[in-house]
């Protein structure tokens, strides 16, 4: 185009401009590599696993699922896992909430939060290894209790339910606490002060002001903590009794995949695992929806 004829000035809105008006241009395309990557290594394997679970080594389409739900050695793993994950989550939340209420008043939270972030980043394997020594029959824990005269012979806390339970608390509580703390600090202190000036005592303030505001956050914290605990794996092997009382569902899935090389069965177990997690999450979020959802930042928020 050498000169701009009046035709070229006409109101022709190009496709590029129409897309740009809807927010799609070169910049938007930057999201594509990450999206494609996750479709390939996250969504695709999930769908692949789902389909694979319906193509068992032998038997009909649902053979894997039928096997799982007819063999107590397999279906009991769900109960075993829930029996670990649910108490751990409830106890973590029940302790995290009052502690978070105290910690939010502290000006120097950083040291405590840093100590608590340790087990989250050290991971389950190290915690399991440490607890094997510490909670073992000759470990400091039992020794201290004996010294205090609370017991007369070492308590058995490893290679059973309690070993896994402790390790889940050690790695799970800090996670739950830091989540809860971020919710509790997010509530505008002026709301509590306002309640106090209207004559609400500390229990009333908690019951009628803070708790309703916190329920949505606590529900999320519950879901995330539960999902982490439900996926317990290394500590159930190292600290528990992986053949018996702490044979959790991820052990069953792992054994199917890497000991029996039955990827179809392993995928079926992984899908069952996902469904159980999903059911609990949906149930908790469903309860959450019956409460107030919105800003906790006070009037200005």
């Amino acid at each position, binding site marked *: *185009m050498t*000169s*701009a004829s009046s035709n*070229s*000035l*006409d*109101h*022709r*809105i190009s496709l590029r*401009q129409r897309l*740009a*008006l809807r927010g799609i241009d070169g910049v938007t395309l930057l999201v594509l590599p990450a999206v494609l990557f996750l479709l390939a290594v996250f969504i695709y394997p999930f769908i692949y696993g789902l389909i694979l679970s319906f193509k068992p080594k032998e038997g009909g389409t649902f053979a894997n699922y039928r096997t799982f739900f007819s063999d107590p050695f397999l279906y009991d793993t769900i109960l075993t896992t829930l029996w670990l994950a649910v108490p751990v989550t409830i106890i973590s939340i029940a302790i995290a909430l009052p502690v978070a209420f105290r910690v939010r008043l502290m000006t120097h939270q950083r040291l405590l939060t840093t100590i608590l972030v340790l087990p989250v980043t050290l991971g389950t394997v190290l915690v399991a290894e440490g607890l094997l020594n510490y909670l073992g029959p000759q470990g400091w824990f039992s020794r201290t209790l004996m010294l205090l005269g609370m017991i007369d012979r070492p308590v058995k806390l490893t290679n059973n339910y309690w070993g896994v339970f402790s390790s889940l608390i050690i790695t799970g509580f800090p996670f739950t606490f830091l989540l809860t703390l971020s919710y509790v600090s997010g509530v505008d202190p002026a709301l509590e002060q306002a309640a106090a000036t209207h004559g609400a005592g500390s229990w009333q303030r908690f019951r009628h002001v803070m708790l309703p505001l916190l329920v949505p956050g606590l529900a999320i914290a519950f879901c995330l903590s539960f999902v982490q605990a439900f996926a317990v794996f290394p500590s159930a092997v190292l600290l528990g009794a992986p053949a018996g009382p702490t044979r959790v569902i991820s052990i069953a899935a792992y054994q199917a995949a890497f000991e029996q090389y039955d990827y179809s069965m392993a995928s079926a177990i992984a899908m069952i695992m996902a469904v159980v997690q999903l059911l609990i999450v949906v149930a908790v979020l469903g309860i959450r929806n019956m409460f107030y959802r919105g800003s906790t930042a006070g009037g200005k928020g």
Partner: protein
Amino acid sequence: MLLASSPFHEIRLDRLSRAFGAHNALKDVSLNIRKGEFIALLGPSGCGKSTALNCIAGLLSTTGGGIFIDDKRIDTLKPEDRGFGMVFQNYALFPHMTVRQNIGFGLKMRKVAKAEIEKRVEEALNLVRLQGQGHKLPGQLSGGQQQRVAIARAIVIEPPLVLMDEPLSNLDAKLRLEMRAEIRRIHNQLGATTVYVTHDQDEALSLADRVVVLRDGEIRQVGKPSDLYERPDHLDVAEFMGYRNRLTGKVIAKDGDRMSVAVGNATLTGTARASLKVGDTAVIAARADDVVAGTRSDQAVEAVVETIEYRGREFVGTARTPQGLELVFHAPQTAELGSAIWLTIDPARALAFAA
């Protein structure tokens, strides 16, 4: 700094349009900007003035029309290829660069030699009177100083066109006046072609060679500040220029462009700004300065005082006519609230529009 030597004669907006979905933010705006001219785009918020500026800068694509420097079409170029300078409302200084690096940014992008950049940045610092502040970060400067950096950054590249997007709106009243004078001084010194967006008529009138009044995405009037101030073409432009008093009545006599309009029992006279004939409904518009409390006469409107304020040399008040219209007036002495007064309107300064 030889901006005046940039080899072009005019910048032309040719039926420039921009639509956001079904909403036309800018409709067929045509304007010729001569080299060295200071143009103000004036209008209320949402009138399309910022859209126009962003289209010229290339930050928004147009949906119709073109922008030309002489015969070269530039609206198809990316913003970085247009070579304009721009001053943003919130300054948009790079927070991680020193004042010197901020000013030199455009030159660096143009791959100017280091020594040359240093020399020109120093000149620009002197021009905006920020000698000795070059090593600071923008966060260490006051609002006025940041604005000076933003101006220096825009002019140091000697652009064919400097765009200014409400550059004074973030400053307090005193600083705003001071920076207005600075912008005027710098423009006089460099003669940079400038398009200046504002919603403040004082700013537009005091700075610009020509003012473009926009409303609903369309140009309402283009003219010298004095033309706009004294002879607005439309009632809405008049309103924007401070003609706050409007009285509606019938044209009863006509002498050239002098219209006599009957408003209630009074006969008001004004200069016609529309073609009016005897019997038409007309609006007499007048500024508060030209409505004065005086004695009862055929040319005076009766009204009841509602507020009165002392303004130093005189009083300014509002009063309501029997028809329920509110008028703003000046008075040499105070008046009793609720008392009736007679307001005369300077016939030489009043304007008559079609209703």
